[in-house]
């Protein structure tokens, strides 16, 4: 039983590392795309596919083992929902990169910096979610500060994406279809911070349940 417990703890840690890795890959690939470094972008996309595949295997293993061995009966439903939502973060990051690859949006160079700021902020929110999830498992009483950070980052991501959208739609030299296309990528990128906020909301309730 102790071996099984240690094995699941290690798999959960590996899973969280994959979520964190996906955010780093996303940030690097985003930069590669905007700087036209196509080979590096392709490499990052391949890495992302591997990370997503590994995370899916770990997710299924963790969920199966929790239910098969009746572990943490009071919290396994919460852990299951948590992992499903964390998986959305990896899936969304991968989907954005795949769409960059397929649709190759033409992003005006004068908004690159704002785009980088958006990608940095959403990446930071995903990484903070990983830290908060670790705290949920190890020290739920100390999770509050980490959750506050996630909410702040989500707010910042919203501000950047709204400013970006305003800037895009105020440009006279772009077609409406072009503007709409760029807006789609801004919204999808911002979705990562929104999903991080959803996970933070869940964690705040789940942590209260764990505190005796």
């Amino acid at each position, binding site marked *: *039983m*102790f071996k099984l*417990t240690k094995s*699941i*703890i290690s798999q*959960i840690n590996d899973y969280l590392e994959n979520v964190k890795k996906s955010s780093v890959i996303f940030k690097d690939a985003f930069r590669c795309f905007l700087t036209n470094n196509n080979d590096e972008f392709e490499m990052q996309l391949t890495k992302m596919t591997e990370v997503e595949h590994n995370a899916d295997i770990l997710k299924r293993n963790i969920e199966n083992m929790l239910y098969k061995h*009746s*572990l*943490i*009966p*009071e*919290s396994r439903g919460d*852990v299951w929902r948590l992992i499903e939502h964390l998986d959305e973060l990896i899936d969304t990051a991968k989907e954005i990169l795949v769409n960059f690859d397929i649709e190759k949006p033409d992003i005006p160079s004068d908004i690159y910096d704002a785009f980088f700021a958006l990608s940095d902020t959403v990446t930071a929110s995903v990484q903070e979610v990983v830290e908060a999830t670790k705290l*949920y*498992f*190890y*020290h*739920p*009483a*100390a999770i509050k500060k980490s959750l506050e950070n996630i909410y702040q980052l989500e707010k910042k991501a919203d501000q950047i994406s709204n400013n970006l959208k305003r800037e895009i739609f105020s440009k006279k030299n772009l077609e409406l279809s072009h503007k709409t296309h760029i807006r789609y990528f801004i919204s999808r990128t911002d979705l990562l911070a929104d999903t991080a906020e959803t996970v933070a909301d869940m964690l705040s309730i789940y942590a209260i349940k*764990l*505190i*005796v």
Partner: protein
Amino acid sequence: MMIIYLLCGFFLGWSLGANDASNVFGTAVGSKMIKFKKAAIISSIFVIAGCVLDGGGTTQTLNELGKITSLKDAAIVTFSSAFTVLMLTKMRLPVSTSQAIIGGIIGWNILYNYSIDTEVLTRIVSTWLICPLLAAITAIIIYIIARFILFKIPFNLLKRDFYIRQFLIIIGAFGSYSLGANNIANVIGVFVNTSELTDLVLFKEIIVPKEILLYFAGGLSIALGILTYSKGVMLTVGRNLLKLSPEHALIVVFSHSLVLFVFSSVIFSNFITSLGLPEIPLVPVSSTQAIIGAIFGLGLVKSFYSIKFKAIGYIALNWILTPVISLAICVFLLIIF
């Protein structure tokens, strides 16, 4: 006829095992933290150990209230208690075997015009009041300590789950031991002074005192109740009546077990006396009332609004109802037979 008389005690032991083991392992089994088979085996072994090793103290107190020397009378007192327990259980009231047997013994005293030792009776009745109160205080103290530890020391959720499972087994074993030690007096206490039962001589040399035989047989009957009929009760208690988180279950069962141990252990009682503190009365108390007391204490410190005051009312009602009904049935049966 002797077998039929002894079967009355055996029946009371069986029903005690079937019902009260759920107080110890109900939440753990109901929440799937421990499998029933494992819980039943551990509980059975430790109940028998508690009966044989530490059942003397409470048995002596019961005998101070009434020295029943006739096997038939002992059987009637036991049967009255068992019948009262069965009747009140059917009425869905949390009944206490300990209070039923006291009612039966008082009934026997009244019918034979024996004077009742009021000092012993006061000692017994006062423990009925102290037992749930002490369980509540113990639960509050353990809760505060557990909360402090969990706030200060980071602990992985899964490791915490692993250790809670181990503690539920260890404390469940301790609870079963205490249950056996404390409640064995209800099952065989009235048979100890009967003249029909004698010591057992093995291989013409080894003498097994009848008390030990009775403790062992009583423990066996409780264990049989656990093994054959407690599964349904454990699942009902664990999933519906006492739906607690494993952490809270641990606190409640530990408080319950400590209180039962305090009221049954001769060694602990002697230790307290040696410290110059007042003597602890060794009296069979209600396992269910100890559990309700512990849950009340936990509710008090966690959330005042979650306390079920109805349950407290039931305890108070049972302090009067159970012994009175048992007394009446006992007197009635003793007159008839």
